[in-house]
């Protein structure tokens, strides 16, 4: 695939925004001021960036416990996302949800999720609403390799298949569900072949190559928008960090394996491609990175500046009025 300079820089910026955000979040978390626990998206940025580049603001996304990258790539401003993960009242959900319950309906973002597999039927349902209205919207359901052994995956993809819903199922196969290797979780580790089980297209792509992802997602999204039904895209990627922040991430994986995957870092690969193809200069890329760092700093300041929640609001929104 040939990149235009603008597209290459856009994708570079999108991935950089996630990377810098996540690493800053990690630093703040390590300082001990942040409640709860977090799962970082570092190393998988190409998937969120490559897919969400095709989406309109009113398209839907359902996401996972490792979903900060999806929220940012879908367009929710960074400050409210940072604050939400920090549990602050100026978070996009008033701090009531945290890392695994980030929502913003203004951006069609129907939630990160603490339940593995749940994003599959929820995403299919968002597609059902779009189909019911005969609108031009699509829904993208992100999930990990851990979800494909769960019944929610089977039921959600099957229903989307029979009703030809405008949904794109994006599996971020990072080879481990917490510590369970994919090869021990299923006899069929070629996740994209499951598409044929449900009579829908299935495709595997290099999940650390944003160009491949961008191209495959574009085709699937066009198909869905034009009434052609769902596609399953398996993005083969890796989580170079631990499962959650604080998990050393070794023991169940060798240091050599992690080192090999770090060589395939998706941001480094895009940078090398941009420079090799002379799509932008080193100075230009450095400039983008500095702008992103300033944006993340502002997001941190936004979150850090907030006071704590008012305990009186704890019973709000149990029921809709």
């Amino acid at each position, binding site marked *: 695939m040939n990149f235009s300079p603008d597209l290459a820089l856009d994708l570079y910026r999108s991935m950089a925004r996630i990377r810098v955000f996540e690493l800053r979040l990690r630093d703040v978390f390590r300082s001990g001021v942040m409640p709860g626990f977090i799962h970082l998206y570092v190393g998988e940025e190409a998937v969120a960036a490559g897919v969400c580049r095709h989406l309109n603001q009113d398209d839907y996304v359902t996401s996972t416990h490792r979903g900060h990258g999806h929220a940012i790539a879908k367009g929710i401003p960074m400050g409210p996302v940072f604050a939400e993960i920090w549990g602050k009242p100026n978070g996009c959900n008033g701090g009531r949800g945290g890392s695994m319950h980030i929502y913003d309906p203004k951006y069609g973002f*129907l939630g990160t999720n603490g*339940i593995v597999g749940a994003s599959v*039927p*929820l995403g*299919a349902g968002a597609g059902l609403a779009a189909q019911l209205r005969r609108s031009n919207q699509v829904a993208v359901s992100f999930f990990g390799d851990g979800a494909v052994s769960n019944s929610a995956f089977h039921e*959600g993809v099957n229903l989307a298949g029979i009703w030809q819903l405008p949904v794109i199922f994006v599996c971020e196969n990072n080879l481990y569900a917490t510590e369970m290797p994919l090869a021990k979780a299923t006899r069929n580790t070629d996740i994209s072949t499951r598409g044929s089980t449900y009579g829908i297209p299935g495709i595997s792509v290099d999940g650390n190559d944003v160009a491949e992802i961008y191209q495959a997602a574009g085709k699937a999204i066009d198909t869905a928008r034009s009434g052609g039904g769902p596609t399953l895209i398996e993005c083969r990627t890796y989580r170079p960090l631990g499962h959650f922040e604080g998990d050393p991430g070794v023991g169940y994986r060798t240091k050599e394996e992690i080192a090999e995957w770090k060589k395939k870092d998706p941001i480094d690969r895009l940078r090398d491609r941009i420079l090799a193809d002379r799509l932008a200069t080193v100075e230009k890329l450095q400039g983008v990175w500095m702008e992103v760092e300033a944006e993340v700093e502002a997001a941190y300041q936004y979150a850090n500046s907030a006071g704590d929640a008012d305990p009186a609001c704890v019973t709000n929104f*149990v029921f809709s009025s």
Partner: protein
Amino acid sequence: MREIKYVDAGVEAIQEEMRRDPSIIYMGQGIGPREGNYKQSRGLWTEFGEHRVRDTPISELGQVGLGVGAAMAGARPIVDIVFLDMVMEAMGQIVEQAATIHYTSNGQITVPLVIRAAMGSVRSTGPHHSRCFYSWFAHVPGLKVVLPASPEDVKGFMKTAIRDDGPVMFIEHKFFYNKKGPVPEGEYTIPFGKARIVRAGTDATIVAMSLMVGKAVEAAEILAKEGISVEVLDPRTIMPLDREAILESVKKTGRLVIVDEAQAFCGFSAEIAAMAGEQALEYLNAPIKRVCALHTPHPFNPVLESAMLPAVPQIVEAVRQVIRG
């Protein structure tokens, strides 16, 4: 007033609402051309077509999960699971997603979803087609739970449930489906959280829901011949619960019997008893009595099944005991 069947009252409510609001979608197993196991979707597929009335495979988790997703994205789905027992297959989607999202999204997202299912045993329907799990849902913050005991309530509450912006468990009783009752002509809704005094009385209060309402009335009629005046109160919705009406009745009669087709332990009857103990103890002239199912699964054998379920003679005896004090 005209009399129509309980099942047809539900059909009428859904039909009127679907004509009014194009965002309503109805999905479930066998609700298309088959028109539902109990004919609970009669005529709807023919009128509204397969785009809005969708037959689903046997896929409860998927049905509810897609219902939640569609509700979040602007549709108003009614998901028909037919048997309350099978709702268990979709429990995570109901509890973790449907009930919780409005709260965690800080009120930004609503989940206008009706989950419709029938409960109760009707002669040897066995442990997978009889269960009365309704109090489980009332335990979950964010869910509303409705148990209509008459055709009039079915129609009025179904319309309220469909218009509600949050998830509603709409739990009918299989035994009622072919029973007729008065239903007003034309448009009406019934607000949640308003109990109904089914039969007024002065000596003891029976709180009962769904099929147990009729059994409580039968018991009250037997007791009337003994000179005991029993008030029968049907809360109709567990969540929200009309606490005021129950407490007012208990304060008036000074005696409370709770009848529940489900098990007693940690159940609806325990909640009502706790409420009376906390808020009306000084008015009680006798210990509270509960008449509930035994703590067993539903047995198939008819003799065992009868032994397991609450029956009129037990209700009569429980009231006599609270009258004796």
